[in-house]
């Protein structure tokens, strides 16, 4: 139960936190079509987050924060709004502050390429809920990845300025990418049980997809070492960047002010 809950929280928090970051772009995109597309991606990820948080709560009710007697908040909201930053299990890539539009599409490419490989395999999970989330999510995330890849290529080959920005975003974000593919004891155990997916096993596929996109973008993967954690701990262990605490301060403010509220 505890492993499954931790695993679902990881995948759920990734989706929740990146969805939140994407929602911050709302009314700020370069064109209306992109405003709509980015909101759509944010909505898909939010949907995945809700299913995964609910699955986590069902797998191990102990992960759900207690609220005062009488609070009508469902488990998904308790998990989203009443956990401290250190209890979140997202990878750090998902939580980084936004930069420009190049930053948005590069992060989305790295994120959705890794997630898609994972969701495809998750569709074969022995846990029926996870299998369903994997199958449905893969369809959605395929679209996200294609959207991001199209923009990465466009910006890389558009103007000098757009190429400069695209490469800068790639350089900035590449060191955060490996964390997504790191083996983690929880995932490893669940993979052995046929329930979860070991992200390390997707590394080749993910690398190949990224290589193809970068090739079309006439760009190379930057030579930058992965970002260190603290004493080996990173996002999946609750060791986050400074950005997450600020994100949660804003995200949780209304819910926490009204623990007995109905929404």
């Amino acid at each position, binding site marked *: 139960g505890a492993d499954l809950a931790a695993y679902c929280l990881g995948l759920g928090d990734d989706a929740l936190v990146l969805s939140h970051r994407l929602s911050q772009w709302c*009314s700020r995109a370069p*064109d209306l079509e992109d405003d709509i597309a980015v909101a759509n991606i944010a909505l898909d990820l939010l949907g995945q987050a809700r299913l995964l948080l609910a699955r986590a709560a069902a797998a191990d009710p102990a992960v759900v924060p207690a609220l005062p007697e009488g609070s009508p908040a469902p488990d998904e909201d308790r998990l989203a709004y009443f956990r401290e930053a250190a209890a979140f299990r997202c990878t750090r890539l998902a939580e980084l502050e936004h930069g420009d539009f190049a930053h948005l599409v590069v992060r989305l490419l790295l994120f959705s390429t890794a997630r898609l490989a994972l969701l495809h395999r998750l569709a074969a999970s022995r846990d029926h809920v996870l299998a369903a989330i994997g199958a449905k999510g893969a369809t959605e995330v395929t679209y996200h990845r294609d959207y991001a890849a199209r923009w990465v290529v466009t910006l890389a080959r*558009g103007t000098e300025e757009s190429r400069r920005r695209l490469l800068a975003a790639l350089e900035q974000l590449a060191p955060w990418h490996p964390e997504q593919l790191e083996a983690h004891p929880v995932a490893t155990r669940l993979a052995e049980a046929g329930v979860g997916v070991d992200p390390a096993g997707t590394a080749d596929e993910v690398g190949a997809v990224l290589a193809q996109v970068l090739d079309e973008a006439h760009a190379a993967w930057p030579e930058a070492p992965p970002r260190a954690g603290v004493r080996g701990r990173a996002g999946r262990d609750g060791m986050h960047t400074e950005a997450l605490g600020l994100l949660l301060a804003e995200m949780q*403010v209304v819910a926490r002010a009204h623990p007995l509220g109905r929404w």
Partner: protein
Amino acid sequence: QLLEEQFEAVVARHERIEPRDWMPEGYRRTLVRQIAQHAHSEIIGMQPEGRWLTRAPSLRRKAVLLAKVQDEAGHGLYLYSACETLGVSRAELTEMLIDGRQKYSSIFNYPTLSYADVGTIGWLVDGAAICNQVPLCRTSYGPYGRAMIRVCKEESFHQRQGYELLMTMMAGTDEQRAMVQESVDRFWWPALMMFGPPDDASPNTARSLAWGIKRNTNDELRQKFVDMTVPQAERLGVTLPDPDLRWDEERGAHDFGQPDWDELTRVISGAGPCNAERIAHRRRAHEDGAWVREAASAFARATKEPGRD
């Protein structure tokens, strides 16, 4: 002359004028102004609610709000397209918005100050918009009327969602009920102002009615809105902040007080609580996105001409 007669005849039969048809220059200008203002309102209207996307207090509400703000972008898109059939490009319209030559609905120059505002905007602001817009589905210009049909359908969905949020909050804690009342207190008068100045101070109304662009006067629509809203407020359990509001048995309608028309004038002229911020936000997004749009054009050109890449 013949063209003008044909045009008048189509309008008189309540049929549609289409982009290929001849139309008087004034008709075209009025339409461009009105459709653009409407499109701009959708786009600027993303901001006050969008402010709360990052603070929505439940994941369900976050999804509902995100979908709604996305719909507004979609409405902007249809309406800009309708306007483009009259020969003005979206880029030109955006320029006119951010340099202040074209307006948007004054309601969006008021701040959103609590999550209840998301509900109140749905209930009152979208409600007022629907009163304005339902008749526009029968407007004489085809692309505008068809866009309005789609817009209105989604707007009434939004209105129901807003009302449902307020209903839910009213069933919550005392603080939540107070939050809803405070929000309604703030938005009631600005919502009434959405129908524009009183008829006797609205010089363009007659012309727009004659052309079939508008179908009702400002005061008619305002009355309809008040009559529709009062019972909804009762069901919700909030008080509308108008001591003069009462049912007039004889008229079969509600009497109500006057909004602060001076405030409306100030807000329309640019001195509202949020005017400068709304435009600055739009301008920043537009300018920040310029390099992306240029890159997309450059890439499209390059990939169309295989020799150049």
